[in-house]
């Protein structure tokens, strides 16, 4: 297929000024429009906690939160996110390094084996908590179905998330 050329009179902008808040920090960057959020995080910002599994929306390893909603960062162009707040796995722990309740629960329940899918699982689980649509095991499983675990740690992943949901329901002071 032939290479696209710009229509007459239109200057192609090879980098667009974009302002993002990433894990609480404001970042102002000129970003080529064809850069995915996943590549921006990993390749330019050295936030390699977010993983690339399939790069096609099929595995969930790249899940991050945009304004609190979980999405697949491999299918989002970074320039489209101007003005948003992005949370990655690096942003979930406390500033003092204390683990997030989901991170603690994944450790307590052995919610991983190789760990490759884990950042995506945990960000997705935080999205699930924000959505407040799942309480039963069946609901947790269905609402976590966008995260594939090649090692098959599913039962323990569900245990970990169930634990956090139950603790949150019994202790309203637990952090969001």
């Amino acid at each position, binding site marked *: 297929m032939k290479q*696209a050329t710009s229509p007459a009179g239109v200057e192609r902008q090879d980098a667009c000024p974009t302002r993002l808040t990433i894990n609480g920090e404001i970042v102002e960057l000129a970003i080529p*429009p064809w850069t995915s959020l996943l590549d921006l995080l990993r390749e330019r910002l050295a936030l390699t906690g977010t993983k690339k599994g399939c790069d*096609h929306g099929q595995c969930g390893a790249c899940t991050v939160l945009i304004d609190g909603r979980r999405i*697949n960062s491999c*299918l*989002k162009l970074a320039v489209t996110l101007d003005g948003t707040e992005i949370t990655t796995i690096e942003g979930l722990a406390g500033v003092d390094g204390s683990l997030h309740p989901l991170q603690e629960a994944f450790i307590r329940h052995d919610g991983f084996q190789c760990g490759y899918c884990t950042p995506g699982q945990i960000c997705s689980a935080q*999205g699930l908590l924000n959505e407040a649509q799942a309480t039963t095991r069946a609901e947790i499983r269905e*609402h976590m*179905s966008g995260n594939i675990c090649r090692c098959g740690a599913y039962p323990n992943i569900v245990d970990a998330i169930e634990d956090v949901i139950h603790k949150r329901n019994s202790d309203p002071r637990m952090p969001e």
Partner: protein
Amino acid sequence: MNRFDYRRPSTLAEALSLATDPAVRYLAGGTNLIDLMKEDVERPLSLVDVNHLPLGNIEDTVEGGLKIGALVPNADLARAARITQRYPLLSSALLAGASPQLRNAATTGGNLLQRTRCYYFYDVATPCNKREPGSGCQAIGGLTRQHAILGASEHCIATHPSDMCVALAALQAVVHVESARGSRTIAFEDFHRLPGDTPERDSNLEPGELVTAVELPAESFDIHYSYLKLRDRQSYAFALVSVAAALRLEDGIVAEARLALGGVAHKPWRDREAEKQVLGQAPGREAFGRVADTILAGARGQGDNDFKIPLARRAIVRALDQAARAAPQRQVEKRIS
């Protein structure tokens, strides 16, 4: 991915004026378009990011229905109270599709215009009439597990992958579109196309036209409905066969029947003659079986997908039965009742 211009208009007029060249694409959630651009299947000159247009609301219509803005995310639409209460068939179909992450990003307009998942369409190294008109169809005689059993042509046997659209077909939605030339509405049945000898066209949308909204008529089938989706794994997989069934019963007799099938054709499949057959009858597996036989009378397998014909028959009967019993298929608890 090829290089392209990126535009982010904030008004409808501006967006429409930027999209007059057929090589320009509107960008909504990006979950299909970006994927296809990574595969070089789509190589747009320019992307017009429509996410900042005011098309994100659900409004009541004077006719008693709803008008859903093209940018309403699939996740939000599935959970909106007016949808779960009045159009649970639509909510159910949405929740049967993709994953929570994808539904957060995917939009109503983008879902309508998502392209087929035919493996050969995705593989730029193989001929495909949809991707490269006139190059041939590698699927015919190839791997056809996903492919069509109804309405296919010698030029293309692809299926439309959407779940949402199957429910919209049954609900007889209307699509609102706008372009620099003006606005028009398209009945849902006329929105998507059969492949014929122009498989490169999925829909009757003209170049530059933007979907602004999807309108639902007042009749909502909130009691007797079911969306039954059968697939290779229970979640996060496209339909092999899906059925949206909706009935209106009066004194135990079928007064109205709507049925649309997904995963079997180039568009959500409806057969009005078959639907009429069950009117005035008591609901039951025999009557529903006759409906299924009529719908599938012209069905043809391609080899790998021959199983879809008996599967579709059973799915039609079961979904109509679930609808009649007011026991819709649950999308969390997957057991088929």
